[in-house]
C-alpha cells in the first residue's frame, strides 16, 4: 500500500521540472524492487527490459475499490500488490524468443517452467499499455503446470461471432473452428485476462480514463474466446456485480 501511494506521488512530482532528488532515489529503489524479483536473461535488450519494468510499475500502482467475485478468486482484490505477487509466484525469469511467429508478442515454453519469453514485438508493436500487460498475465497463467498450463480448448465447430459470422484468423483468413484458440472455463488464460481487464476497467480507482476504456475494449474482445455459454454468462454477470473487496 505504502509503495503504491508513494509511486503515485512520485509520478505526479516527476512531471515537474524541479522534482526532488529524494523522489528520484525512492523511485529507483521501487524500480529496483520490481527488478530484483524478476530475473532477465542477458539477451533481453535494455529497451525491452525497461518497458517491462515500467509496465510493472504501473500495475503495482493500481488501487481499487470494488472487486468482482471471479477476480477475488483469481487475483484477490483489485490492487497492484496483488497483481504483482500473483505474477511473481508464477514467473521467475524472462527470456527472449520469437515464439515461432513474426507476430508473436510473448509465449511460454513448457519445458522451461516459471519463465515467459518475450519477443521484440513487445516494444515494436504499438499496443496500449494495458493490452501489453494483459498479454503478460495471459502467458503467466500458462506457466501453471499444476493446472496443465491451462491449455486452450478447441474452438467449436462452427465457431461464429455474436452476429452469426464465422470467426476467422485475422492473419491467414482461415476459420478458427476446431483450432486451439478458445477456452471453455473462465479461469484459463483468456478468462483470467478478461477478468483482470474488466475489473480494471470498472474498479480501478487511479487509472486514467484511457486505461479504463482500453481495458474494457480488450476485455470485451477477449471474452469472445470463452465459448462455453454457461461460463460466459457467469462472467458477464460477475462483471456487472459489485462485490466489496475483503
Amino acid at each position: 500500500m505504502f509503495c503504491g501511494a508513494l509511486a503515485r506521488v512520485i509520478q505526479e512530482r516527476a512531471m515537474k521540472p524541479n522534482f526532488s532528488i529524494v523522489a528520484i532515489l525512492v523511485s529507483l529503489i521501487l524500480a529496483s524492487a520490481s527488478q530484483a524479483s524478476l530475473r532477465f536473461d542477458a539477451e533481453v535488450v535494455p529497451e525491452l527490459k525497461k518497458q517491462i519494468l515500467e509496465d510493472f510499475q504501473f500495475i503495482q500502482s493500481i488501487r481499487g475499490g470494488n472487486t468482482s467475485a471471479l477476480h477475488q478468486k483469481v487475483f484477490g482484490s483489485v490492487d497492484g500488490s496483488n497483481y504483482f505477487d500473483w505474477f511473481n509466484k508464477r514467473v521467475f525469469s524472462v527470456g527472449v524468443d520469437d515464439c515461432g511467429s513474426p507476430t508473436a508478442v510473448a509465449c511460454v515454453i513448457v519445458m522451461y517452467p516459471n519463465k515467459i519469453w518475450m519477443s521484440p514485438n513487445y516494444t515494436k508493436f504499438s499496443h496500449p499499455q494495458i493490452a501489453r500487460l494483459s498479454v503478460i498475465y495471459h502467458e503467466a497463467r500458462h506457466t501453471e503446470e499444476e493446472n496443465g498450463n491451462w491449455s486452450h480448448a478447441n474452438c467449436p465447430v462452427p465457431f461464429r461471432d455474436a452476429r452469426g459470422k464465422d470467426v476467422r484468423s485475422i492473419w491467414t483468413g482461415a476459420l478458427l473452428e476446431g483450432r486451439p484458440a478458445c477456452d471453455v472455463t473462465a479461469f484459463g488464460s483468456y478468462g483470467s485476462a478478461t477478468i483482470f481487464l474488466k475489473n480494471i476497467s470498472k474498479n480501478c480507482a487511479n487509472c486514467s480514463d484511457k486505461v479504463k476504456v482500453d481495458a474494457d475494449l480488450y476485455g470485451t474482445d477477449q471474452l469472445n474466446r470463452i465459448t462455453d455459454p454457461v461460463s460466459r454468462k457467469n462472467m458477464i454477470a460477475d462483471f456487472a456485480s459489485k462485490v466489496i473487496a475483503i
Partner: protein
Amino acid sequence: MKLLKGIAFVVLLAGLVLLGRHFLLNIPKTDTPLTTQVSPTPSSPAPTPASEMVEAGGGSDAPLQARDREQIRVLDEILESKNDNDPRMDRLLRDLSEPFKKELRAKYARIPAEKRNDRGTVVFLVGREIAEGRGSTADLQFLKDVLMEKPCLSLEDCSKSPSGVGPDEQHLEAIHETTLHYPQLMDLRYLKIALEQGSLSPVMREAVLAILESARQSPNPRVVADADATLGTSNDK
C-alpha cells in the same frame, strides 16, 4: 566513527551511481518540437485529412495559445513514454481549445498508421470532448474520417498482410485484432458513449447518428459490424 564514515561514503556513492543511471535511462524530451515527434511520411494508408466543416469555431484559424502549446508538449511526452496512465491525461488534456484540436487532427495525420496506440490516443482525446459535450462538427468530421480509413492489415506494416504466421499464434490474435482496429474502436466507443450520456445537442446527436450510418459503408468490416451494433442499440432505446 571510521566505520560510520565508511558506510556514509558507500551510501553516497551508491546514490550517485543510481542517480546517474536514472538520468541516462530517462533523458527528458520536453523541448522537442512537435513536428519532429512524428514521421512526416506515414508508411501506409494515410487517412483522409480531416475536413474543415465548421460549427462554433471548429476550424478556427486562431493561433495556439500558451496553454495549447503546453498541452502539445504534455501529449508528446505521454506518447513518448508509452505510459497510458499518466495522470496528466485526465488533468491537463481535456476542455481542449479549437486551435489545439485542429493541431490534434493534423497530428493524427502525421502519425504513422502503425502507431496504433498513438493514433488511438488522439481519437480518445477528441472523442472524450464530444462525449462531454464540448465537441464541434469539425471533431465529428475527424471521427468520421477515421472510421472510413482502410483497415490496418499488420502491426508491422498496415499496408501488408503478415507472412509466415505460425498456427500457434492464433491464440493471441484477439489482442492483435483489437489493436489493428484500435483507433476505430476507440472512435466508435466514444460515439456510443456520447449517445448514451445524452450530453449532445439535438443537432450533434443527429450528426453522430449520421456518422454511424455512413460507417456502415466503411472499408473496414469490423467498423461496419460495430457501427451496426451501436445503431441497433441506439434504435432500441
